[in-house]
């Protein structure tokens, strides 16, 4: 072996694969590849495949081959007033539910953010609704809302008030259940934000003779706003896609949010091509809303 080659071999030696065990790269791949495969098979592939279907008249229930129909599906959907009513219902639901969650969640966080006995236990207990399955929550609330033996009517003395059978009330009833379930999430994030506000700022404000409201709007809220925005983004996205609670609790035309309409279109009416197009419209909308929020979040952070 000539001297140069020997030098080359020596300098290469440390990076050569080890005789035993796997290299860091191999371990990394081992962890990442299954997830990537899973994502491709169950998310990316159907996503792209359904984009293809959205331009056809394909029906999964029939043996007819799919025919390319161009933008017909999109045209049909966007000019259908019923679909727009589904969107209006969803928007209403999102606004009620997210606003309610922010008010309740942030309010409870403000109450918890002080020295009280059993604070840890109390916080954990308050988080319980969030950890339940939505289907279970739906069944609970169906019983709670029951006109004849439901505890809500009993507790508030409402007689046989129809929560879920009343077309006007049903959407509010679903939103209330959702607020009950997801306010803890907003509370948790708010609590993290609140406890990150330095205590000495409040002391400085007390010395500066600021009123409680003034301190809230000029110190607490600006400092918690970014994390609260994140909670709002998550909850808006989730509420926009809401299915299980609405499906279990009520089947009124007034509670037919887009996910339910989509489900019916795809799996009851078997209009596979059309429902794919619908799903894409919803996707674009969620992305658009999220983008607006993120832009706003960055603005809040910069201030």
């Amino acid at each position, binding site marked *: 072996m000539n001297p140069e080659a020997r030098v080359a071999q020596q300098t290469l030696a440390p990076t050569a694969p080890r005789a035993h065990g796997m290299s860091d790269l191999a371990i990394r791949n081992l962890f990442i590849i299954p997830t990537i495969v899973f994502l491709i098979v169950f998310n990316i592939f159907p996503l792209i495949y359904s984009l293809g279907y959205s331009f056809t008249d394909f029906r999964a229930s029939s043996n007819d081959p799919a025919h390319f129909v161009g933008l017909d599906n999109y045209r049909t959907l966007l000019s259908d007033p019923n679909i727009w009513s589904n969107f209006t219902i969803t928007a209403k639901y999102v606004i009620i539910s997210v606003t309610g969650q922010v008010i309740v969640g942030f309010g409870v966080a403000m109450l918890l953010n002080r020295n009280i006995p059993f604070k840890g236990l109390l916080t954990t207990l308050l988080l319980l609704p969030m950890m339940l399955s939505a289907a279970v929550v739906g069944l609970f609330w169906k019983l709670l809302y029951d006109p004849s033996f439901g505890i809500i009517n009993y507790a508030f003395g409402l007689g046989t008030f129809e929560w879920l059978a009343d077309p006007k009330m049903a959407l509010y009833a679903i939103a209330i259940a959702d607020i009950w379930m997801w306010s803890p999430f907003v509370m948790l994030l708010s609590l993290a934000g609140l406890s990150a506000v330095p205590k*000495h*700022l409040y002391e400085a404000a007390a*010395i500066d*003779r600021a*009123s409680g409201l003034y301190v809230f709007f*000029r110190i607490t809220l*600006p*400092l918690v706003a970014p994390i609260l925005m994140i909670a709002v983004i998550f909850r808006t996205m989730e509420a926009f896609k809401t299915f299980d609670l609405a499906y279990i609790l009520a089947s009124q035309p007034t509670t037919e949010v887009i996910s339910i309409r989509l489900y019916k279109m795809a799996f009851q009416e078997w209009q596979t091509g059309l429902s794919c197009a619908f799903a894409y419209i919803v996707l674009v909308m969620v992305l658009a809303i999220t983008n607006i929020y993120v832009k706003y979040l960055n603005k809040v952070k910069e201030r």
Partner: protein
Amino acid sequence: MAHIELKGVSKSFAGVPAIRDIDLDIADGEFFVLLGETGAGKTTTLRMIAGLEKPTTGRVWIDGQDVTDWGAAARDVALVLQQYSLYPRYTVRQNLEFPLRSPIRPIAEAEIATRIAKVAATLRIEHLLDRKTDRLSGGEMQRVSIGRAIVRTPKVFLMDEPLSALDAKLREALRGELKSLQMDLGETFLFVTHDQVEAMSMGDRVGVLNKGALVQVGSPQEIYGNPVNTFVARAVGTPAMNLLTGVWAGGRAELGAMVFDHPGGQGAAGRGLVFGVRPEDLVLGGDGVEAVVTDIENHGVEKIISLSAGGQALRATVPVTVKFLRGDTVPVGWQAARVVVFDAKSGQSLRHGG
């Protein structure tokens, strides 16, 4: 402007005493410095005067009024903290406006603008007014923080180690600025620090705290020249006072193998004593005890000479022009009149009844 009095104030946290029975009287327009180590209770004392803590026992008086049960807002004090406590996401101007925009006492817009302009000029932060506070350096932040205190013209200024997070040069500059600011305003300042140089250079009077008790109150000269006990003697002065154990017998101080003349020496013979002598009160050359030079530190204007005599270590300061070499043998004497004698057991100065 205000006169602050603490009357028999004690404070304990969950049963642990932090402040033990403090009596303190701070005159109107005085620059008073509380000096103490971490955990001595300086900050707690300050917070009790600010109204952020309530004393367990005792009363706090400001301007002839018992304010013990008043909240911080009602006391009309200003507080400057080590962490600056600037309101984030606001500009310097908004921070300075904050105390003026309190709905409790509304102030006209024009008045607000005038006051901010004046404060900004005083602290030389005019060019920073429209900058966000997170774009400021430490010194600038502390200036804004001081500005927020003075913009309101409160009765009392409370400062909790406001300079300790700054680097040495800036600290020195702001020290001078704060002192002259206080003289210009003529207001009462209570300044808390663990830095004896800050205490000695800024305070009209200094209070030394040890483990929650006020050990000595006096002018910096009194504290330095006539410490009430060995704790204060150690706490003040760089290099520290030489504390030498020994006895007094017939006009002489016998410190182990060293013997110094100590004619006027108070105190009984045969009693265990500690003789405290400042490094500048040691006289090198002439008559005296033979000592060996073990180390020389050159500090520019003066030199610190470490000496060993009779098994005891001594530190002396001499002008930088005096030349010594390590290993030299020098005779050491002292200025007997300046020596402070402490009781060895209690540590109390005999002049203060120890």
